[in-house]
């Protein structure tokens, strides 16, 4: 099987040429069998380099091309298009990685050149067995699934819906809004969080292109880019959404209250049938079955009795629904959790009443909160006259989270401002390690706080205790901190302490990554395709991420990531069809013995058994081309396009050419043998 192979070795400036003797490799490659022409060139990926390939294909009638340069993840596409322009099927091409895997990893010029020759030889042997393949068209379903109804999810959904595409927005809580709905003001503009959020939520609620599925979770995801089938469990609200007008009488009449640990962060109560907050979207309440007397002991039904609608909207027999949704792309915007501050016992949260977390303080200071905006201590009456705000609780700490959570400095400044505003003669102490104000108008906000007379202490708080040593400390919380700028250990007596905890990945983020088959890092945040150039895409085609689920970030970044993910998806939908690698498996019917070993091997259930023909068959559309079945087939009846057994076997032979035939390596072997025996 003789082919005319063109071999091109790239200098890549000095990146390769510095350690690999490219001329020698080119000359050596020139006189290998099947090699028609072998050249070395300064920059193969430059247009001149590509023209070299084009002209050689046309003039020399090359039938195969091998380029030894950087990683295929960098320029495989460039050289494939060059082959195509030369009239050669792009898959009759093989790339050899002699830069990342070779020249950059050693200074040993002789070893690097020897390795380069071996890899090139392997590629030449392999490329001879390459077959012509065509890119596979894939229809993109225009619907999109957005998981998570926080500000990032809302932005993504609105962008796509306004672009005219249909969006399914799935939210685990009874209402969308996420953590932002709990905040009072936002930095640095001090806009009221609800004022800027609720209009967006209403827009989502009323948008014809958005199907809102709250109090729902994704149970299962099948399929691939363009054709995902998602099973969503719509948990029973025990409210009939068609009839309910959202009047709220049922909430009023419900005689039972429970502490609201989710929305009110445990600071106040909610009824057993409840809406998380007045501006909730959708407006339908939901029954908390764990505490509802009817579900526990079968009595009460007060909500049903007082419900004014005809027919009655309360439906105790309602069951969870399972919906199957077909979408083309998925955007994950699942948000974050707050670090559990009780993990740092020396800060006394839980033991000392007046130590609050930032979320608790947000609810305290919120006009719609339990104290309608009055900053008071845990007894819900006495306002504090001295407040300490502790930065970096659980962040920048090897024992908890090594990373900086990016937003705590700014919202701690916001808290200081709110205390000054509500309690003009209160003293505020912010204990920080570094004041990080990297955004637009952020540093100015910090200056504003300095002018407002906040005491900034540069030092991380060591511990918070109520065991006083002097009368002045009696009955107060004492914040012990080393003020590093004056190198004094200070004990500051205060009435209230606010802890700014780290932003953590969701507790179940690992489960989500398995569900959607993409990756998460050691801390549990989702892994983007490229940290700098591709932050909203993931390694899995068709799955995009936005907001705090990808890493700690503030609202403006979450909104822009939401919009970015939406733009990526909109781009795919607009193209309608996407061409993907033809790397797929296929079964040669005659050779298949029907042993069915491959049937349960495929994670995508792409292999089915044809009963009458008694052979297995592969649904090419479902196959992702991993090749596991190809390797498992005992009678080699399954072949994997572009990674066939012949191709790989010949590549193995090729890269070990110098061991099999080459003399000097055997000489080396003999000399060792003598010493050895």
């Amino acid at each position, binding site marked *: 099987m003789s082919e005319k192979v063109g071999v091109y070795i790239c200098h890549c400036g000095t990146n390769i040429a510095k350690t690999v003797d490219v001329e020698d490799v080119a000359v050596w490659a020139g006189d290998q069998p099947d090699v028609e022409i072998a050249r070395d060139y300064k920059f193969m990926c430059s247009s001149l380099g590509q023209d070299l390939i084009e002209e050689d294909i046309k003039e020399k009638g090359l039938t195969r091309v091998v380029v030894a340069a950087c990683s295929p993840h960098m320029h495989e596409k460039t050289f494939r298009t060059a082959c195509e322009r030369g009239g050669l099927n792009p898959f009759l091409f093989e790339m050899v990685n002699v830069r990342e895997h070779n020249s950059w990893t050693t200074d040993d010029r002789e070893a690097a050149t020897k390795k380069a020759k071996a890899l090139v030889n392997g590629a030449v042997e392999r490329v001879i067995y390459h077959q012509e393949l065509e890119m596979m068209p894939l229809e993109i379903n225009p619907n999109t699934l957005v998981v998570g109804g926080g500000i990032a999810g809302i932005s993504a959904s609105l962008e796509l819906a306004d672009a005219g595409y249909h969006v399914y927005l799935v939210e685990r809580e009874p209402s969308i809004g996420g953590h932002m709905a709990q905040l009072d003001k936002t930095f640095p503009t001090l806009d009221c969080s609800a004022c800027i959020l609720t209009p967006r939520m209403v827009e989502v609620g009323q948008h014809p292109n958005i199907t809102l599925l709250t109090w729902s979770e994704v149970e299962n995801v099948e399929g691939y880019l363009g054709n995902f089938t998602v099973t969503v469990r719509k948990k029973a609200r025990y409210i009939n959404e068609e009839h309910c007008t959202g009047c709220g009488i049922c909430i009023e009449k419900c005689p039972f209250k429970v502490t609201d640990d989710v929305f009110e962060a445990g600071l106040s109560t909610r009824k057993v049938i409840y809406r998380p907050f007045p501006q909730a979207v959708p407006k339908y309440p939901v029954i908390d079955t764990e505490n509802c007397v009817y579900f526990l002991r079968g009595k009460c039904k007060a909500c049903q009795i007082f419900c004014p609608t005809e027919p009655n909207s309360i439906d105790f027999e309602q069951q969870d629904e399972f919906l199957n949704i077909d979408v083309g792309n998925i955007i994950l915007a699942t948000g974050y959790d707050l670090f559990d501050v009780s993990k740092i016992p020396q800060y006394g949260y839980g033991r000392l009443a007046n130590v609050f977390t930032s979320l608790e303080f947000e609810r305290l200071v919120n006009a719609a909160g339990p104290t309608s905006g009055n900053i008071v201590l845990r007894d819900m009456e006495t306002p504090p006259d001295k407040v300490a705000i502790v930065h970096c609780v659980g962040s*920048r700490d090897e024992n908890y989270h090594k990373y900086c959570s990016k937003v705590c400095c700014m919202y701690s400044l916001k808290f200081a401002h709110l205390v000054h505003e509500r309690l003009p003669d209160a003293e505020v102490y912010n204990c920080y390690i570094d004041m990080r104000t990297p955004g637009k108008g952020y540093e100015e906000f910090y200056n504003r706080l300095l002018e407002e007379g906040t005491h900034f202490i540069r030092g991380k708080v060591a511990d918070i205790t109520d065991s006083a040593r002097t009368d002045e400390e009696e009955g107060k919380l004492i914040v*012990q901190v080393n003020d590093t700028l004056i190198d004094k250990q200070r004990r500051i007596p205060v009435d209230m302490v606010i802890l700014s905890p780290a932003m953590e990945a969701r507790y179940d983020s690992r489960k989500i990554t398995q569900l959607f088959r993409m990756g998460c890092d050691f801390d549990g945040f989702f892994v983007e395709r490229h940290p700098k150039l591709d932050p909203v895409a993931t390694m899995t085609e068709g799955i995009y991420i936005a907001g705090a689920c990808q890493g700690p970030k503030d609202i403006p970044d979450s909104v822009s990531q939401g919009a970015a993910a939406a733009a990526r998806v909109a781009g795919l939908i607009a193209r309608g069809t996407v061409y993907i690698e033809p790397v797929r498996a296929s079964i040669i019917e005659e050779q298949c013995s029907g042993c069915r070993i491959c049937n349960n091997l495929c994670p995508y259930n792409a292999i089915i058994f044809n009963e009458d023909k008694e052979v297995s068959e592969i649904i090419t559309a479902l196959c992702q081309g991993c090749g596991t079945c190809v390797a498992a087939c005992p009678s080699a009846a399954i072949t994997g396009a572009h990674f066939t057994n012949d191709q790989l076997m010949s590549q193995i032979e090729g890269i070990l050419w110098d061991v099999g035939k080459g003399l000097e390596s055997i000489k080396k072997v003999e000399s060792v043998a003598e010493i050895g025996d």
Partner: protein
Amino acid sequence: MAKKPTFSKEIANLLYASHGNPIVSCIQCGTCSGTCPVAEYMDHSPRRLIAMINADLKEEVLESNTFWFCASCYHCTVRCPSGIDIAELMYAVKRYSIWKHQYKEGLVGPVFSETFVKTIFRSGRSYEPILAPSYIFSRGVRKMFEEAHTATNLMLKGRIPVLPSRIERIENLQRVIGRIIPTGGSS
């Protein structure tokens, strides 16, 4: 010819056995100095001492009393967000200062440690009467009476050993010590 190691490199080498991160990873956050129970008695806080070591201020470091006031309670070590074994660092600086016989005037610590080591070399076990009083005399008459008062109370309760207790195989122990420090012990 290898460069002469800087002071901070020397201290870092002394820390090779300690199992924390190197002191260059200190972010100067002040948790150690906020936690330290005796920080107010130190002329430089542990945090500042680390900064001075990293800045190779050898004289000022050896002149400070910080590491002599360290009670080795390890509270800083367990809380350090950069995982530095700060108590171990204080031990290392003490060892460096004793080897170089370079420490602040009038400190009781160094003399106490050297005497302690000599007692062990001689009898294998420590003997309170030698250790305690010989330093209190150097601190003024009033302190001497207070200490004598406490010592007599303890004597009355039979809690002060009269004879120093020796271990039987003291020669073996001395030879064992000799194999570690060839100069026949640090006497």
